[in-house]
């Protein structure tokens, strides 16, 4: 045994929790706060790190797009306010489970297909934390 571990949490552990929480808040502030507001909400599709399509939601509303990449096919649905992946034949299905995205900065990532659908712009709406947890 190299060193005997302490098994009860103490004040120093609380400090680690505080540091991680502060990092999370700092990150949220930086990543979620700096979105370009006031421009038209646009879905940007990237495959393998290269932008392939820009779809202003106002124009693309009510349409469906098929994205083929990495041997997989994603069916993307767009409305004036939301974007979501209706179905995909990738093994993880994370892109489908992500559900609807509607605010600038939000994205749907499909790692197996190496596809990112990211929303840019949008009206100035509340930048509060997503109700993802709980």
């Amino acid at each position: 045994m190299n060193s005997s571990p302490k098994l009860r949490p103490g004040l120093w552990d609380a400090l680690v929790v505080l540091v991680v929480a502060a990092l999370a808040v700092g990150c949220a502030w930086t990543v979620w706060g700096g979105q370009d507001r006031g421009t038209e909400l646009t879905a940007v599709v990237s495959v393998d790190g290269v932008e392939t399509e820009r779809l202003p939601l106002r124009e693309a509303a009510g349409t469906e797009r098929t994205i083929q990449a990495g041997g997989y096919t994603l069916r993307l649905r767009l409305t004036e306010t939301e974007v979501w992946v209706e179905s995909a034949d990738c093994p993880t299905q994370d892109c489908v489970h992500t559900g609807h995205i509607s605010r600038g900065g939000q994205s749907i990532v499909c790692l197996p297909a190496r596809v990112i659908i990211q929303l840019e712009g949008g009206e100035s709406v509340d930048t509060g934390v997503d109700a993802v947890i709980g």
Partner: protein
Amino acid sequence: MKLTTKQLTLCGILTTLALALSVAENQIPLSLAIPIPGIKLGLANIVTVFALYVLGPAQAVLILLARCLLGAVFAGNMNALLFSLMGGFAAMGVMILLSRLRGLSVYGVSIGGAAAHNCGQIAAAVLSLGNTAPLYYLPILLGVSLLTGALTGLMAACLFRALAHTDLMKG
């Protein structure tokens, strides 16, 4: 590095256990509750914490490396190797440093490791996709790592208590 037969056997058993825990946690659909690519409980981290204290950093790194390589081979997905290596080594680095701080318990070490693991995985996603969009998930993943880290810390603490009377813990 020279290993005794006992150490080598223990490394083998712990690698197997870590792989089994990785497979087991894939059956827990955490991504349905929190739909983020790559989100998981990090149960294999219990093995890393245990190995770090019982066998030391060098052997813990060997176990981690074997787990990442074999895990990618078993899953038939070498693309996932970059993710598990970057996540695993970020967690290992932070946990080696934190485990040297006397005041910290396995809970603090485990939470720090879980947070670092998520940072490593997001870095892998940014590198792999060539896009900073995955950073959007980092704040949520850091928040989740407080819970998953505390959970794996609790399980590691239970493990250390249960094994306190064995030769394993007395060196």
